[in-house]
């Protein structure tokens, strides 16, 4: 997989993960182009399309589009299920996930994705194992959160991450 994009029906980018080195300019161009192409497609159309020399696999869940770019020899159907598994993971973690969960807890969405996919390939397909890893991390976090000094820094970095992420999505 070369990259994964999550965007809303309004075309707002919610999450982006790039597994190939590209310049920011190029990323923005690709995102704009793909968001337009995918949003223009009708619901009954097939979930795959050829784009440049890649294959795009996308699926819509409620108001969010999940969109993956895979290479020529990669399997479309299994990619569709990668998307589904990721949605399941988010759903399980957040408890019926919605777009707002991803907006406000984007760092969790990234952590879950990192546990599931790494470098564009499936790392752990077992739902249980992925969630276990995340929960363990959360456990560590909850304990630490009681430590007063870390909180401002933590919040500060979350804020700056969120700011930079959203600014790079426009």
């Amino acid at each position, binding site marked *: 997989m070369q990259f994964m994009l999550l965007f809303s029906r309004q075309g707002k980018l919610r999450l982006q993960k790039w597994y190939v080195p590209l310049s920011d300019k190029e990323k923005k161009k690709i995102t704009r182009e793909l968001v337009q192409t995918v949003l223009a497609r009708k619901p009954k159309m097939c979930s*795959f399309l050829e784009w440049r020399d890649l294959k795009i696999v996308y699926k819509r869940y409620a108001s969010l589009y999940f969109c993956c770019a895979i290479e020529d020899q990669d*399997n*479309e*159907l299994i990619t569709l299920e990668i998307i589904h598994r990721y949605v399941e993971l988010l759903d399980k973690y957040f408890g019926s996930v919605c777009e707002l969960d991803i907006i406000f807890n984007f760092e969790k969405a990234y952590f879950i994705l990192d546990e599931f996919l790494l470098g564009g390939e499936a790392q752990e397909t077992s739902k249980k194992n992925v969630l276990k890893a995340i929960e363990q991390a959360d456990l560590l976090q909850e304990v*630490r959160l009681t430590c007063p000094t870390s909180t401002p820094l933590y919040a500060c970095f979350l804020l700056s991450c969120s700011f930079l992420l959203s600014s790079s999505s426009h």
Partner: protein
Amino acid sequence: MEAVNLLSSNKYTEKQIGYLFISVLVNSNSELIRLINNAIKNDLSSRNPTFMCLALHCIANVGSREMAEAFAGEIPRILVAGDTMDSVKQSAALCLLRLYKTCPDLVLMGEWTSRVVHLLNDQHMGVVTAAISLITCLSQKNPDEFKTCVSLAVSRLSRIVSSASTDLQDYTYYFVPAPWLSCKLLRLLQCYPPPEDGAVKGRLVECLETILNKAQEPPKSKKVQHSNAKNAILFEAIALIIHYDSEPNLLVRACNQLGQFLQHRETNLRYLALESMCTLASSEFSHEAVKTHIETVINALKTERDVSVRQRAADLLYAMCDRSNAKQIVAEMLSYLETADYSIREEMVLKVAILAEKYAVDYSWYVDTILNLIRIAGDYVSEEVWYRVIQIVINRDDVQGYAAKTVFEALQAPACHENMVKVGGYILGEFGNLIAGDPRSSPLVQFNLLHSKFHLCSVPTRALLLSAYIKFINLFPETKSTIQEVLRCDSQIRNSDVELQQRAVEYLKLSSIASTDVLATVLEEMPPFPERESSILAKLKKKKGPGAVSVNELEDAKREGGELNGGGERGGDTSAMAASNASTPSPSADLLGLRPGPAAVSVAPPSAGSLLVDVFSEGPAAPSTAVNDDGFLSSAPPPPAAVSEDPAPPLPEAEELLNKFVCKNNGVLFENQLLQIGIKSEYRQNLGRMYLFYGNKTSVQFVSFTTTVTCSVELQSQLNVQVKTVEPLVEGGAQVQQVVNIECLTDFIDAPLLNIKFRYGGALQNLTLKLPVTINKFFQPTEMLSQEFFQRWKQLSQPQQEAQKIFKAVHGIDAEVVKAKLLGLGTALLENVDPNPENYVCAGVIQTKAQQVGCLLRLEPNAQAQVSLNSVNVHVHTDTYTCTSAHTIHNSGLKIVRFLDSLVR
């Protein structure tokens, strides 16, 4: 910086956020990378699995070269170490994969290879899933080293396929056991040929059969996820079956399975089935089986609502086409074209054109098809397509009459596409006589029909029509006055377009002056084109994008295009040439035709026939200079060269190329994308012989290949150069040799100019180089002793006899290099002559016909003067044994100094 501090924190939260920050926001070129790497290194060696995973995730997310440099050695160790936790192994495998993709040169598996392959046997499914991505990628690059993975993969696959859906616990996805891993295993096997070991192969075939069987079983769940996961494995298995292409039974079963999917209600499945069948169609075992689905596919082309699915259907129709169903498929594609999406029309047109040609049993069908194509989708018919139909009509005399009739009928439509007018103009101009017997298509009717379209057409088409008109005058003398009238009218003869004006003027003149015989020769029917690969095919390959086509093919495509456009070819300058052209036509023969024959060459400058060609390569010649009644009437040989064909000025680098050969006699004089010129030369006394080798680097003929060597007026009295002429045709990839004899009459300074002219794809190539003949080539080395040398040196001390120059040695002074150069110069290098061992001393006699000039040379390198700027001081003393003016001797001396200057640079 704060983020980097967070990395080194012991608190998980801080570390995690630090990593997130870095993964998302740090560019690989950041200067913080060293600090970050340090923190990562600490975490990797922390033995805390959570921290290790975080660090590995970060490396995989950034994946920069610096990271690869820092960690490519460490990660394989973590990956195969016995005490590494499973989750860390998973991250390590994929992290390594990412680094390998970034910099394959830094990730060296070597000793780890077999242990990595054995990860396929790991207990933990997650580890296998992660490792197999790494192994697949590595196998693609070094299949031999990872060969052992085949049998391991087969046994793993077999275990998964035969397991019950509950066996694998959480790795079962909607009742499908380990779908991701299965797909990856099948994908890995596609990197290798079928297993040689019979047992392994049997087991694999069994697996594939099981997968095909399962597809027929009723679904265990109604969920789309279940069927997707199951079918993902099925498609991957089919891809492997197609890859092996050796099991007819499995291939046919695969085809039947896909046939079922063609009518599935899931659009995704229909799409994939069409795509997958495309590859099946090319296998000899399953081609027939694929063909049985033709009706379904045609139906898909007509009824699918999604254009990307229709596109796949069109692709499949193209792939399954053969002689038996060509007519049906072409007809269907044509009818689809009328409503096809604009985005795929051009490709469809090319495909129809190719199929029509490839499977044409009778060429009247072919002509009908292409004319239909132009009628339906004229805008999308590229030039290659209509060039091709003309080539074919010209080459097959059985279809010419039919083509003329059909095109005549097609032109009668009130609105017809310009491409139709082009084909019509060309074909009627050539073969209009074949249908002129019918009063409904009498010559005048034909002409009026063509001319009625004239004003609606663009300039290139008009030019083509004008050429068709002059052909009409030859075919039907009765139309002469009408056509002359047309040509004479102001809108033609004073047209603001130079090309049109020129054609009108010339054709008018030609028609009024030439006798019928001359006209008949000049406007003879076009000779057949040589058979060659369809340029359309090349174009289609090109359209398929760089991924599918190698660069070579692309270049071929370009070349084909260039060739076809090569209207400006002047095939022959003499009637003999024209005759030989008819038997072995050049591939770049003028497609627009109507090439003025032998006599007309002087009348029409080359650009006359070269509408589609870039006229700028020659510069449009003014019509007035082009009309040369005398040459034309007496059919005298054409004037040596049109104004525009004057030799080009020497290339800017000519002087430099010349200097390259001062000290050597053999080598490559010049090279560009088309042409390579090599030189071998030998010199004795005052005589020299030079072999020039002209290599055609393309696969296309060079036509009208001529070379001339010219000497300036001054040089003519100093150097006698004789050149053997070369053949005017240089085949693609061939090399021709030319001999140049040189006699040095007296000393000289300039070099002769070598001008090369030829036509490549219609465009005139014109380049001028300096022939590397320099005075030092006629040196004869002379040995002498120290005493003798300095005695002579002192004798030659008059100002005209001495030349001196100090210059900087650009590359430093290397004794061996300087020695080699001086020997190459042709002089004798005298050892133990100069008291200073640093200096070089040489002596030689320049042999010319008129005189012999003795020449002493001393090169005094001065390495100490400055550290970096070495300077060299050269004295050349020249002498004459016979009498000559001091002036030229001095010049020779200076010249030699100049050479030395250049050679040390």
